[in-house]
């Protein structure tokens, strides 16, 4: 309807207007006369009106009468239309646009003429004069608007500055050679920079220059250093964007900043043929405002999470683990769960085993916490960034855009901006999925922990700056022992070692300083806390059981540290490092992990006549979770079906083996592993007692000491040969049985801790057959020495009174520290 009548209405309105203009102001004029006068004076309006009426009638008839329609379309207008179609689209568009302009201007002029009671030609001549007369008024209005709008413009202009620094090649001296241990990432980044600098290499073959790189990985692994090296190596300007640049006080300033940043980038890209922009800590701007709130680091961007979950094992190890372990520990510590009173966290488990437990716990937690997301600060900054990174590219420049278009010329196509966007983050799961799609961030590189060569080089680099007496072998060993060391932590460790040396009044760093520094840096400083004697003994025994089973059974991982010193909420722990970087665990290895967990329970029961502390609760939890998890997903038990998959698909509580409930199968498996653990412990009674003694005496011993005790060799802190002396077992079994009777409450008499030095000194004259190295190397891991089957004997006279329970027993917490793996 509107399409049919719009021209009729327009022409009618114009005519009515001119008639009204005729009547207005003339007291004698009648509407009828005005109408008739204008019908002569403005006859063309009526002519057009008549033509339009005719056209509409023609249309209406054409719609109802096909023969009529065909006649007009095919016979009459066809030729005209063909000719018209022969004009190019663009020219046709220009012609029609010009015609519309002319018609519009003519109409405006006509109205103006009637208003000023002059002829159209006079009006045309008068127009410049009228415009000139109007200029002061127009200027006044414009000035007013400039003042009102201008203050906002100026304010936001100032607000939108800052946070962005531009470096030119000569400003930065860092090179790719300075990035150690990240060779494959460096190579890939170098490739990107190469294409940015020589785009013709790829563009001439029909490709395009990759536009975005995401560097993600744990903190301190050199992402920013890598970016700095890019800035140093490239011949293009390098724009560094502050993490906080886009968080502004006012909504909308972030958007302005993004826009002004990209305007700057385009300018630089055109002037220098390319530009690199680096967003550090990109998670601050890459999320849709979900994560900053109540979740803290524990939340997970839903979209990005699924993306990184697809990335397979990388995601399991990076994306999941922090959530798992941190969240799980936080939860248990907060809820006061009694099973949380465990000795050593999960530090004796391998990374994958811990990840599995963490995942279980994270799963529980997301049900509870998952609803709390959303409602974050949405201010469009991310969206502006997304649009700028791959939005419509509008033609550039005022002359090009406005003037050429006004003149009816086709605007020049926008130039090709070569902008390489680099982002770095340690929370890739917080980034928006849209940001990571190809075309924006084409390539994601994990900047993981440096390779061993890189770590050796980093250690050497930082050690070269100080005086030390470490051999190449020791440095190599340090690198092996610190698989998750980064440039930052290595620098820190070397510095700590120097502090330790200076504290002792030395100028030169020794191997001992390095080890001490590592313990402080890896596991923190011990609290100034003394366990009461009885508890000290039970904790030491507990840890010794873990250590012995781990030492005898584990492959590919070595004990890093065993301690019974309290650190924060942790009573004691045995820590391990992996010496090889592996992706998958075997079923047998999982079983060993479970056995290491169960060692504490088996040991406590063995040595305390069937009694055990609640400190084993955490170990049992880990063991149960591991068994349940791998039984339901990796055929660790008797069945093959993946119970996990069925639960995930909500297929109900299907019983795989109707005769044996799942819980019973878990229990049976745990029981089986428990019995195997008992065998190992029984075979290593002497080693357990030796380790217990060493732990009680030294509180903290290194992995090398553990090895020395187990093998009867000389270690850095402890001389393991002394524990091979025949009277050790007699003395210490006596001490232990006294502790057991004290535990049962049969005796309140305190007994002093047996000083081994005295026992050893007494027997020093006698040759020690067990100190022969050859004998102990052939014992192997699994076999054990089998020396420790003697029963407890009464204590001899070397022991004195032991002060009983001078302090209330404090609950032994557990520790949430991630242990080294690779």
């Amino acid at each position: 309807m509107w399409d049919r009548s719009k021209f009729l209405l327009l022409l009618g309105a114009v005519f009515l207007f001119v008639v009204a203009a005729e009547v207005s102001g003339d007291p004698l004029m009648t509407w009828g006369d005005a109408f008739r006068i204008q019908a002569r004076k403005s006859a063309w309006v009526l002519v057009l009106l008549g033509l339009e009426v005719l056209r509409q009638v023609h249309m209406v008839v054409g719609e109802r009468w096909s023969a009529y329609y065909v006649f007009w379309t095919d016979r009459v207008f066809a030729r005209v239309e063909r000719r018209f179609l022969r004009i190019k689209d663009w020219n046709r568009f220009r012609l029609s646009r010009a015609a519309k302009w002319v018609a519009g201007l003519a109409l405006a002029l006509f109205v103006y003429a009637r208003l000023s009671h002059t002829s159209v030609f006079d009006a045309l001549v008068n127009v410049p004069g009228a415009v000139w007369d109007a200029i002061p008024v127009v200027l006044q209005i414009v000035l007013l608007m400039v003042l009102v709008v201008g203050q906002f413009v100026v304010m936001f202009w100032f607000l939108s500055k800052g946070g962005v620094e531009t470096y030119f090649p000569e400003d930065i001296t860092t090179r790719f050679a300075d990035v150690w241990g990240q060779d494959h990432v460096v190579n890939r980044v170098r490739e990107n920079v190469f294409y940015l600098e020589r785009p013709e290499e790829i563009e001439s073959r029909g490709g395009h220059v990759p536009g975005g790189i995401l560097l993600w990985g744990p903190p301190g692994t050199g992402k920013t250093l890598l970016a700095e090296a890019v800035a140093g190596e490239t011949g293009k300007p390098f724009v560094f964007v502050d993490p906080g640049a886009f968080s502004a006080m006012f909504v909308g300033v972030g958007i302005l900043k993004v826009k002004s940043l990209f305007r700057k980038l385009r300018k630089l890209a055109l002037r220098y043929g390319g530009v690199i922009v680096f967003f550090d800590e990109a998670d601050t701007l890459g999320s849709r405002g979900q994560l900053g709130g109540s979740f803290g680091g524990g939340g997970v961007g839903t979209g990005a999470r699924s993306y990184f979950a697809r990335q397979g094992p990388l995601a399991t190890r990076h994306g999941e683990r922090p959530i798992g372990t941190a969240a799980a520990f936080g939860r248990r510590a907060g809820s006061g769960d009694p099973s949380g009173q465990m000795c050593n966290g999960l530090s004796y488990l391998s990374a994958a085993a811990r990840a599995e437990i963490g995942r279980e716990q994270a799963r529980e937690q997301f049900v509870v916490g998952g609803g709390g997301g959303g409602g974050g600060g949405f201010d469009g900054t991310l969206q502006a960034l997304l649009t700028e990174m791959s939005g419509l590219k509008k033609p550039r420049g005022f002359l090009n855009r406005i003037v050429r278009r006004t003149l009816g010329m086709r605007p020049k196509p926008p130039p090709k901006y070569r902008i390489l966007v680099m982002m770095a983050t340690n929370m890739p799961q917080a980034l928006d999925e849209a940001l990571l799609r190809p075309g924006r961030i084409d390539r994601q590189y994990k900047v993981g922990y440096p390779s061993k060569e890189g770590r050796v080089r980093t250690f050497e680099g930082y050690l070269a700056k100080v005086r030390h007496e470490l051999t190449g072998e020791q440095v190599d060993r340090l690198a092996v022992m610190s698989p998750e060391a980064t440039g930052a932590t290595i620098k820190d460790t070397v510095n700590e070692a120097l502090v330790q040396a200076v504290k002792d009044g030395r100028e030169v760093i020794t191997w001992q300083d390095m080890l001490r520094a590592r313990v402080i840096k890896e596991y923190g400083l011990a609290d100034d806390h003394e366990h009461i004697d009885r508890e000290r003994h039970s904790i030491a025994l507990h840890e010794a059981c873990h250590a012995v089973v781990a030492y005898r059974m584990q492959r590919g991982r070595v004990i890093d540290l065993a301690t019974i010193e309290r650190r924060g909420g942790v009573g004691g722990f045995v820590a391990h490092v992996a010496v090889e970087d592996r992706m998958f665990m075997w079923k047998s290895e999982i079983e060993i992990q479970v056995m290491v967990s169960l060692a504490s329970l088996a040991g406590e029961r063995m040595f305390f006549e069937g009694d055990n502390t609640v400190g084993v609760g955490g170990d049992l939890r880990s063991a149960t979770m591991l068994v349940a998890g791998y039984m339901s997903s990796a055929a660790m038990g008797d069945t093959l079906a993946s119970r996990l998959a069925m639960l995930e698909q909500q297929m109900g509580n299907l019983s795989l083996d109707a005769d044996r409930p799942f819980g019973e199968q878990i229990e049976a498996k745990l029981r089986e592993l428990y019995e195997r653990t008992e065998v190992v412990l029984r075979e290593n009674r002497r080693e357990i007692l030796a380790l217990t003694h060493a732990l009680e005496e030294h509180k903290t011993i290194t992995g090398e000491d553990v090895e020395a005790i187990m093998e009867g060799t000389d270690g850095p802190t402890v001389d393991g040969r002394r524990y091979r002396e025949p009277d050790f077992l007699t003395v210490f079994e006596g001490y232990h049985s006294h502790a057991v009777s004290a535990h049962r409450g049969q005796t309140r008499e305190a007994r002093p801790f047996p000083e081994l030095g005295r026992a050893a000194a007494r027997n020093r004259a006698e040759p020690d057959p067990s100190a022969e190295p050859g004998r102990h190397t052939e014992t192997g891991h699994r076999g054990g020495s089998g020396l420790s089957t003697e029963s407890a004997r009464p204590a001899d006279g070397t022991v004195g009174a032991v002060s009983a329970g001078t302090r209330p027993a404090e609950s032994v917490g557990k520790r949430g520290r991630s242990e080294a793996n690779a």
Partner: protein
Amino acid sequence: MESRRWTSGPRRRSVPAVFLLVTAAVVLLAGGCGSPSYQYVTNKKDGAYLRVPNSWDHQEMPGPALFGIDARNVSPEMLQGLMSREWVVGIDAGARFDATRLLVPDAVQPKGFVQVRHLLPEEANAVSTNDLRNFVLSVDDAQAAQEQAVRQDPYGARLSPSFLLLTDEVVHKKAGVHGVHLVYQVKTDAGLVTIDQTSLLDSGQTMLYQLILACSSLCYAQHGAQISDVARSFTIEPTDQDQ
């Protein structure tokens, strides 16, 4: 689907509406074919309006204010000022408009002019309502002469008077516009002429509005009604632009 949408409901409603519009447009077109009943002589700037029968003709006369002025002494600005001070439109009911014969005594069709004049300060000070009567010819003198003639020759002078005042009324219009309306018959060599004169001043006595129509007495006998109609339509709406 597409076609049904266009052929059903909305179309049935739209067709009568279009017809209504088309009909309106046709009526509009047809109405435009007739002639207006009057011609309108307007000076919106000074607020003078006049309506003459459609068969009459009128034309704006350039430069009446320049009579008797040596054009060589006039600068362009002065010329502009003089031109804007006086507006005169000639009116001719004859077949052809003839600007040179607007005040001829033997016109067989009504002729005349309408005039708006911005008075000079000295003119404004000097002018009085009484003076308005004597702008075309000295009416009072002619009246006195006629009375004199009647006294000398009561019958002859009455039978063929040289001057006969037919209407003499004082006019008061809105916004303080005031003046006189006179209709009189004058004997000339070419015969009897009837003149319809309306002379008005605005309230500030700075503007003079004048409408003079004249034709032979025979013509007046025929067209008197039309002339009176035109004189009655003479409307002044002062625009206050000089105050």
